[in-house]
């Protein structure tokens, strides 16, 4: 298993924070599948695996980068669907994201985004994460 360098984020954590901040800006919070979709939209690849996604979210929550809360049952029942676990990026998470972007360097971040933006899943709108908007 890959070891984390002190003060650094794993690539998936960086991506989760980036997409999570964008989703949070529009919807106030995000949930697992919405995040998986956002991650895949920008990579043009498949949806993130269940195990990879929820293990990363759990680890980030435990380390204080994310906060989570279960959606009110009444809201879910009204839409006749299972409850969602809603995540928000904490102040610490946002700080860690900015620090990681700085450590990677503007070129590396831009390169990462260009690589991720190589393909788009047909029929699914992009979230419109601005390359320079959050860094």
């Amino acid at each position, binding site marked *: 298993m890959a070891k984390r360098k002190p003060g650094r984020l794993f690539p998936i954590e960086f991506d989760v924070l980036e997409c999570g901040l964008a989703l949070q800006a529009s919807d106030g919070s995000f949930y697992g599948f919405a995040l998986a979709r956002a991650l895949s939209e920008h990579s043009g690849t498949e949806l993130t695996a269940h*195990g*990879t996604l*929820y293990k990363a979210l759990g680890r980030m929550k435990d380390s204080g980068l994310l906060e989570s809360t279960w959606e009110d049952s009444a809201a879910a029942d009204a839409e006749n669907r299972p409850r969602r676990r809603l995540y928000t990026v904490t102040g610490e998470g946002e700080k860690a994201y900015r620090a990681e972007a700085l450590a990677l360097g503007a070129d590396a971040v831009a390169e990462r985004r260009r690589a991720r933006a190589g393909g788009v899943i047909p029929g699914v709108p992009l979230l419109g994460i601005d390359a320079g908007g959050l860094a």
Partner: protein
Amino acid sequence: MSVARTADYRRMTAHVLRWAAWYTRGIDRQATNDRLDELTSDLYEHVVWAESAGLQPDEVARSIRRRRLRGMVDDLRWRRAQLREARVHDPLEFRLRRNDNAALAITFTVGLGVVVFGAFTLTRVLSYLAVTGDTVVTALSGALVLSLLLSTVGLILLGWRRTRFAGALALMIAQAAVVQFGFHALLYGSAAVNSFMYFSELWPLPKYALVGALGLFFAAAALWWWPSTRTATPTLTSPSEEGDAR
């Protein structure tokens, strides 16, 4: 037809939840419930999205299967981390569970040894019967077969937590018969044992010692797994924050 109603989708979601039930076994109940609820929500959102994107049911099922398969290693790593955390927070519970697994492994191995010994002596006595046609061992062979059957049933009963005590009890009875009839069978089926029995005054001692030791061992195993009256246990964990326990 709605994707959610297709057999492919239902089968694949059942696989995901069955796999999740497997890798969350023995893990903190709150963490398990959180993971299962989150997966249920994910699978639902996946199919809603797939329907709105116009994906075919088989494509959705394939996508869910790939998500499950690609994440398996991470699921197992998550499980290992959860178990490590449980060991830190509740060492007594962890040690009890580990001791239980060790007790099961040892009891099963000893029980298997009894079955193997019984099967070996049965083959010897049957080959003696085939060569000599001496019908005096027919009843002995029948008794050995019955004891072997009982010990095999005992081994099978060890497979379920609720029936383990019965399995140990069955083995406690079966081992006495297997050893008794087995040694008797070797009197006919083994020249070395035959010679030892005739020329040593102490020959019954090893047999009785073995029967006694095995009897005590399986009795201890039966007591270890004896069903206890269920009592209410106080919850030691503090209430979760915002419905999130960890």
